[in-house]
């Protein structure tokens, strides 16, 4: 810790330290201000949302249940939850298998295959929505949660495989050889020996994909049509036109929709920061 602090010159002079502290707190307040403002907005009466006052006279906690019902948040949560959990789980299983093959059961052409897969890290999903929509229609997957789930899996696979491959490379080949000599099947080696060792990598990938898929918008916008299958970002955006003046309800719904991810972040703060960092720096 002291090493890293010194890396950029830990300030020794108390006055320097005090002013840096003050600067950090001021910056934190500036960054938090929009969030506090939205919290305040979510507790206002409709009249107050149009007045110059920053804070509600008396907090309207009833806005939250009202927003829940009016925005149909129950259904949206269910859809987002099912799609996110299913897509993250599928991506991890498939990517671990692929990364295992790319590192421990190499075959002719596996290198080429891997570099093609890396294309997916660069090509943005938004650029592929036209052909994806057509394909989903032909496959009967348009406006289904399964279709969107498969799209998320496809776009998550490159980065997930990359992270798992990086981890598997670091595992000595002798462990695998020994297991093979003992007659262990490849499946057992992967799931009974490597997977428990890869918990850190699994956490990294889970966090990365959970964030990306829970918050994703354009694929959902193009591939879903019926309110019944909408995810949270899509559902909240769709309500916008109908309740343009109900700013306090939009604010309340936005806060409710963000709570799960905040809760997970608070519980796993260190993992989150490490997950996001490792995911990005692997690219």
């Amino acid at each position, binding site marked *: 810790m002291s090493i890293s602090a010194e890396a*950029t010159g830990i300030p020794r002079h108390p006055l320097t330290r005090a002013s840096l502290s003050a600067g950090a707190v001021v910056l934190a307040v500036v960054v938090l201000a929009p969030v506090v403002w939205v919290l305040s907005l979510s507790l206002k009466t409709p009249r107050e949302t149009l007045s110059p006052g920053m804070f509600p006279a008396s907090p309207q906690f009833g806005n939250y249940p009202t927003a829940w019902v009016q925005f149909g948040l129950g259904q949206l949560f269910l859809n987002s939850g099912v799609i996110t959990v299913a897509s993250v789980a599928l991506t991890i299983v498939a990517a671990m298998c692929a990364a295992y093959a790319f590192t421990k059961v190499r075959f002719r052409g596996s290198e080429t295959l891997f570099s093609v897969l890396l294309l997916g890290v660069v090509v943005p999903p938004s650029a592929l929505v036209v052909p994806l929509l057509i*394909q989903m229609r032909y496959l009967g997957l348009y406006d289904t949660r399964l279709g969107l789930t498969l799209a998320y899996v496809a776009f998550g696979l490159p980065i997930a495989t990359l992270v798992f491959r990086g981890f598997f490379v670091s595992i000595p080949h002798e462990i695998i050889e020994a297991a093979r000599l003992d007659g262990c099947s490849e499946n057992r080696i992967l799931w009974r020996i490597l997977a428990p060792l890869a918990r850190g990598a699994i956490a990294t990938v889970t966090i990365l994909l959970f964030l990306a898929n829970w918050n994703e918008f354009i694929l959902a916008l193009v591939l879903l049509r019926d309110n019944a299958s909408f995810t949270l970002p899509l559902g909240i955006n769709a309500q916008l036109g109908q309740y343009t003046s109900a*700013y306090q309800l939009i604010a309340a719904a*936005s806060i409710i929709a963000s709570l799960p991810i905040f809760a997970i972040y608070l519980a796993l703060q260190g993992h989150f920061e490490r997950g996001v960092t490792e995911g990005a720096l692997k690219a």
Partner: protein
Amino acid sequence: MSVQSASVPSPISMVRRRERRTTPAIVGIGFVAPTVVIFAGFVAVPIVAVFLTSFTRWTGFDIGAISWIGFQNYADLLRDPIFLRAFAHTLIFTIATTVLLNAAGFGLALLVNTHVPGAHFLKAVLFLPVLLSPVIVGLMWSGLLRGVGGGLNQLLEFAGIIHQPVFWLGDKRFALAAIILATVWQFAGYDMILYYAGLQNVPHNLLEAAELDGAGYGRKLRHVVIPSLYHVMSVVVLLNVIGGLRIFDIVYVMTRGGPNRSSEVLATYMYEQGFQLNAMGIASAIAVIIVLLAVVASALRIRILRHVD
């Protein structure tokens, strides 16, 4: 290698041979099959398809109604003033957010890395917006920048700077800048976290050597810290650039490209062409341009990194 193992049966080659026998290629292919099928189906095939359809005139979803028109869509786009504006806005947005995010991210990482009281609170606070959906960030900032009852106007009126509400998002001078501001607010913490991770790997002995040579803070930063961050920097810049080129959701939520196209970007224009005007050919051509820009950016990064190393 095969010649060597045939003449001298070293232990290593025996292990290799046994491995080859117990794990035939078919096993490897079996393991990659799910990934290959899903990736091919929903990423690789669409990439090829979008290139092909960009050379066609195609309105609606009927595949029978496609006609091959060569480079006509691209030629049309080059003469389309709205496309050219969207292109320019995308470049402005990408450059502005990349520069601002890197400056903010690096500066904030240095501040957090001093570990003064409050630094870790700042780190946690900065990371909160990263967790939010861009849709929700867009809604938040739409509210903050609203004319009547918007947070920024409330603040400016309170401070006596303005007396009439300013309709920030309805003003074509401010719309794109407002989206840039919201994006920088959301992702400054992301860049900070990456630079912070990079700072933990600055070689300590180099810093000590520089200190012994009497180097001050600025010189250490310039000659030791920044050079050892080149790799991290290249990753962060590339991620910001790719993120900028594909920007869609926050623009769609905040302005829909308006007012009067003043915040139109490539992805929002593509969406309008494809899904509101049913011009799939034109939309595909715009998509191809986005893909090519992203590929060029990552190729450039590889070249520059090689040059630096």
